[in-house]
């Protein structure tokens, strides 16, 4: 609450600019502008920009968090890119993109167009609420819930057994080949509803005449989907991709509570590895190098998506 009333009302003394000579009024205007931005800028600088620069600084040193720091240049970056377990976390993040982004966006498009065609009334409203639910609960809760569902006695195996597939039941989060797709499944559950509702809302807000005339022409679901829905929603697809790709690359909460990166390093993503390196192994330099790489990576992936969706929307 302490920031609600800034100590110096920035413009308390500032009168309407007309009364002053141009140069002075201009300077005063600039000063007032800066004073208004100042509180936000100060918080942003101290708690985001300074740590960001510190991350870069730490990444160039060897440091255990307590003792003296030793300059090592770019060696920590070389370590991240050469040690398979560390590089593997970046590869895992990209594998998660398949589950967190491509499935929810692709499936979301299909479900949204389905909702638009066959469920405009109460069912549609109910579907919106229900599908959106996983998006508002903490990701930690999603991780805990699915940790139990995917456990050996959990619901997933119970259903498989009921379907006569008892042979493939396993502790999904505990096996090397299956843990990452299982984590991906949690991501799908969380993000599918978000993408679906976002795309469905966009469809309702667009020109309904477009769909009506297509239906008059007797266009089936698939025709309508390909020739109207997909091109029309390019911008929203870009939005969904942006949100979900960041969720995948920067994943932490779900992985931390469901597998903690295990078994072995098979589900470790950069966020988890940074945490382990910094707070259990005390290798601050390497942790920071991975952190800097993660931030650069997110920017490199997001910028082209943004550019594409902007262009097609404009």
């Amino acid at each position, binding site marked *: 609450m302490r920031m609600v009333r800034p100590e110096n009302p920035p413009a308390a003394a500032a009168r309407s600019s007309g009364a002053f000579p141009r140069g002075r009024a201009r300077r005063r205007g600039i000063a007032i502008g800066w004073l208004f931005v100042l509180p936000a800028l100060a918080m942003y600088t101290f708690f985001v920009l300074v740590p960001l620069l510190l991350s870069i600084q730490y990444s160039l040193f060897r440091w255990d968090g307590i003792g003296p720091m030793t300059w090592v240049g770019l060696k920590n970056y070389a370590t991240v890119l050469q040690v398979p377990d560390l590089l593997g976390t970046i590869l895992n993040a990209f594998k998660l993109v398949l589950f967190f982004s491509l499935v929810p966006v692709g499936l979301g498009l299909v479900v949204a167009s389905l909702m638009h065609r066959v469920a405009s009334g109460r069912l549609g409203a109910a579907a919106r609420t*229900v599908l959106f*639910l996983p998006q508002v609960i903490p990701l930690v809760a999603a991780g805990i819930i699915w940790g139990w569902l995917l456990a050996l006695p959990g619901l997933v195996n119970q259903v498989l057994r009921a379907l006569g597939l008892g042979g493939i039941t396993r502790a999904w989060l505990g096996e090397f080949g299956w843990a990452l797709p299982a984590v991906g499944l949690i991501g799908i559950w969380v993000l599918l509803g978000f993408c679906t509702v976002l795309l469905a809302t966009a469809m309702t807000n667009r020109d309904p005449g477009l769909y009506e005339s297509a239906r008059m022409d007797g266009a089936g679901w698939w025709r309508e989907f390909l020739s109207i829905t997909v091109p029309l929603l390019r911008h929203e697809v870009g939005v969904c991709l942006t949100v979900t790709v960041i969720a995948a690359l920067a994943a932490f909460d779900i992985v931390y509570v469901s597998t903690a990166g295990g078994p072995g390093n098979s589900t470790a993503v950069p966020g988890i590895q940074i945490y382990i390196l910094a707070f259990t192994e005390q290798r601050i330099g390497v942790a920071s190098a991975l952190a800097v790489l993660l931030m650069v990576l997110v920017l490199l992936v997001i910028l082209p998506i943004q550019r594409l969706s902007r262009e097609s929307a404009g």
Partner: protein
Amino acid sequence: MTVGRGEVVTGRALLVALMVLTLLPFVSIFTTALYPSGTLPRGLGWPAQPQWGNFVQAFTVANMTALLASSTFIVIAVVPAALVISTMAAFAIGLLRFPGSRALLFLFVFGLTLPFGGIIVPLYYLERAVRIYNTRAAIVLPLIGLYMPFAVFWMRAHFVNLSPDISEAARLDGATTWELFWRIHFPLARAPVTSLGILMAVWTWNQFLLALVLVEDPTQRTMAGALGAFQGHYATDVPLLCAGTILILLPTLVIFVLFQRQIITALLQGAVKG
């Protein structure tokens, strides 16, 4: 109706199936929570003797009263402050448009895609140095800073589309910039401010990483952070863990059901603008 009858039925059936798949996990932890504490139940099934007492036990061991108070405190400390300072900044950048405001906007937008994990390590050492580590301020202050890129960007979209006429009229009446902001522009921005407030409240309540790293004491954490600690202690007692998870989810679910229209709209708009 030009959509075929058969298609409507299959489509609706698919939709209902998807809704069931979304809800089933919640049903599963609910029935699991009713099995006797310490046993290993099945994924879905009704226990012979439902143990409603598990919820009472989870309420006590999870120290729910303290958790609710702590989370509420953090939300109240973060949201109004972040709303006011980001709206002030956006007002200056979007409406006053003084020399240098474009550069400032760029600086804020730069932080939009920043993963929290990228700065968590220096934040930890920074907070130890200024002695706010392991207090609620350790979560509150960085969150306000971390929300600034999105909040300023969001509010600027409102101010940049305003006609300058409103300000001119007030200026002629001799209002200072400070009065102009508080008497006219802040009240006028109520709709985007409300949406932004809902967004930041949900994000704060659900914040995990900052709570995990910067605060050791679960009763000083956010709800999500406390849930993480609870899982650490009761990972082996599945019914109790499920009961605790439901209790911790309950406030979120109630708020969501009550304000679902506003929350969904805010979260969707937030994504589209960001």
